[in-house]
């Protein structure tokens, strides 16, 4: 592939990083009430259209853009002296985002239903919610996902610093 094509792809793809940040900022600007102490407020919060939009656009679309951003940054750094570190950072970041995406899927599809059912007079649905949050599958997805994401971010920073191609 001609270098000019790769350059164009990198120039476009790298903008997914700040857009991902903007979407995440919007999605996390309001915080959900404590689900243990403010159960009804929590149920109302997760039943709103705003919550659904924040998870669909902010969290899910944001994570998709973050994956594109990680791949772009990896490709950009592939021709630098920190190529191996960039590859590792890209793999860790993409894997982390993919694992966390499964949780965003739960929050987008299941949580609003749980909130609505609770408000409709079925308090047992909150126990289902708690059972999901404390299930081994949930923990096995969240913990490695977040760890991979954190390590991927740090590795990218070291790769950028070592590459000397971007001002730090």
């Amino acid at each position: 592939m001609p270098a000019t094509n790769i350059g164009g792809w990198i120039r476009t793809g790298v903008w997914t990083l700040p857009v991902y940040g903007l979407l995440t900022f919007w999605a996390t600007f309001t915080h959900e009430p404590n689900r243990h102490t403010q159960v009804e407020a929590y149920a109302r919060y997760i039943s709103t259209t705003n919550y659904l939009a924040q998870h669909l656009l902010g969290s899910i679309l944001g994570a998709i853009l973050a994956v594109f951003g990680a791949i772009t940054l990896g490709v950009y750094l592939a021709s630098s002296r920190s190529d191996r570190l960039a590859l590792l950072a890209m793999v860790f970041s993409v894997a982390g985002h993919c694992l966390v995406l499964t949780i965003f899927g739960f929050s987008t599809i299941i949580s609003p239903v749980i909130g609505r059912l609770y408000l409709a007079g079925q308090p047992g649905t909150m126990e289902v919610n708690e059972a999901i949050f404390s299930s081994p599958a949930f923990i096995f997805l969240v913990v490695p996902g977040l760890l991979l994401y954190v390590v991927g971010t740090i590795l990218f920073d070291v790769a950028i610093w070592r590459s000397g191609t971007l001002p730090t």
Partner: protein
Amino acid sequence: VLHAPTGLLIAAGVQIGWAQTLGSALVVLAGGWIAWSVMRQPSSQLGAEAQPRVR
């Protein structure tokens, strides 16, 4: 430098809500800075090393 703590802050946001907001604000700044720096580089430099070199 701005990008370094973003992963930790966003991950910590699972327990501490404001950490995610702060982390994502830093992603906007750091990501914007990275994108702007890449845009300033000549197109010929981007991905150029991936091409076979002719001596």
